[in-house]
């Protein structure tokens, strides 16, 4: 068990290394890609600033609190992108018939597909979110002690939750041969909704993103606890649950992917 785990990690590192080298071949494109992502997020932050200029606060959330909420989501999304972002284009592999190669090798297909790409473009997300979180931390005069653990938990949980959703979206390709489009049409707008405090949306949405698609555990609930804010609907300790929810959700998503994979095999012949 331990040996196979070590072998898996070793192989993942090897394949990630190959993927990084491949991406670094196009130096200029690589830098532009990172800058592009950082710029996109900075753009959203500027939009938030303009939005709050005349109004002061959004349901009690000031500018820096809003930036913290947003940057927390971007940070875990960055980690998630490194490992899972290429899952959204699984449909291309299925349509082109190149997915079969993942099935004939002596590695678990999910692991193999995951290790195929290690997306270093996500450093744009890190660049933005680390700067934004640091600025928010000092502007809000925060002094964390045990909260660092909650923060870390939120990043891990957020990575697993968003990664899980990407896995589910990619699994849809086994049934419908579409996944990339689904990402842009459903997951991306939903992710964007969560850049703003959940309390502005109706109760139905709050329930949906807490218990069905647990986006609330990515940033809103941890941010409530970390920024010492109160909410009518959620007790602050919910923010600690992110890693737990993440693991559970990711496991369910993985099961769903495997279900799809079985289905793919049966239609292949």
């Amino acid at each position, binding site marked *: 068990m331990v040996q196979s785990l070590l072998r898996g990690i070793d192989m993942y590192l090897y394949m990630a290394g190959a993927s990084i080298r491949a991406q670094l071949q196009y130096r200029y494109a690589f830098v532009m890609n990172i800058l592009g992502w950082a710029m996109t997020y900075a753009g959203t932050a500027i939009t938030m600033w303009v939005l709050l200029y*005349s*109004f002061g606060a959004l349901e009690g959330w000031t500018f820096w609190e809003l930036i913290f909420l947003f940057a927390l989501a971007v940070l875990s999304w960055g980690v998630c992108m490194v490992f899972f972002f290429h899952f959204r284009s699984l449909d291309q592999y299925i349509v082109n018939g190149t997915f079969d190669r993942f099935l004939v090798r002596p590695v678990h297909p999910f692991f193999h597909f995951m290790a195929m790409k290690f997306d270093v473009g996500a450093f744009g997300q890190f660049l933005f979110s680390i700067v934004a979180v640091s600025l928010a931390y000092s502007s809000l005069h925060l002094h964390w002690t045990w909260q660092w653990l909650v923060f870390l938990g939120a990043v891990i949980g957020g990575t697993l939750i968003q990664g899980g959703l990407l896995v589910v979206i990619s699994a849809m390709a086994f049934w419908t041969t579409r996944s990339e489009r689904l990402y842009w049409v459903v997951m991306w707008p939903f992710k964007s909704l969560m850049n*703003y405090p959940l309390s502005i949306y109706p109760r139905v949405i709050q329930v949906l993103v807490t218990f069905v698609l647990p986006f609330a555990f990515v940033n809103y609930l941890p941010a409530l606890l970390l920024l010492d804010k109160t909410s009518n609907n959620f007790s602050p300790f919910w923010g600690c649950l992110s890693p737990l929810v993440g693991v559970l959700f990711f496991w369910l998503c993985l099961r769903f992917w495997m279900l799809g994979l079985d289905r793919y095999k049966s239609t292949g012949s």
Partner: protein
Amino acid sequence: MGTFKMYLEFSRKSFQRAAAYRFDVWTRIVGNVLFLFMWGFIWYGLYHGKSSVEGVSFQAMLGYILVSQALQGIHGAGTPLWEIQERVRTGDIAMEMLRPYDYTTRMLFSDFGGIAFYFITAIVPLYTVLFLVLNPVVPTSLVQLGLFVVSVILGYFIRYCIELTFGLFTFWLVETGGVEDIFYFSISLFSGSVIPLWFFPGWLEQVARYLPFQAIFFIPNSIFVGQLTGPAIWYAFMNQVIWLLVCYLILRLVWNRASMKIVIQGG
């Protein structure tokens, strides 16, 4: 007249293509509605406990956001920027230039077809219901509605010229990554697509007023909700017409330069 008929044929074809891939076309409305939903509740939250801010009521803001999102849906139904860039990168654009039509006009007419299908089958039914249910501020006279439509059309052409010009830059810059993101951000913020210019800080509003982007969404939207009235409308129209001329001339210039570049590479 014959030329016009030929271009119209492109519109007809792209309308048929959109009808054939109608599910792909309709899924786009899901994203559009989700963003409408998001902005609707952001503005609702911002207006919480206030009846009007800077002389604008919530009902007017709701009308602004609804019409803005509908227009963005229409603008987004045309050929996406990356497709133009892809055609330049792969060299497919050379084939277009061999044919006896003007590429920039052909693209415009192709877009009309796809947009017509999306407009009739998705935007109109959905937004009719939304306007009836939500009861926002709407134009109160036919004249106002007419002025709004004229302004929308001018805004559409301006956006088309700017976006195609940007797409043609691919001739010189193969990788436009970072520049492209600044471009998209400028369009989304300075066009007033989500935040009207009257809520901008003073200095930023001044900057936005001197940029062409506000002519795309902000001017038509303001006419729609009645924030722009009287002689100010004519001033805004003049602004739009001038920007359209400027953007069109730049597009022609860039296109001519780009065509020359193809000739050089080909020889």
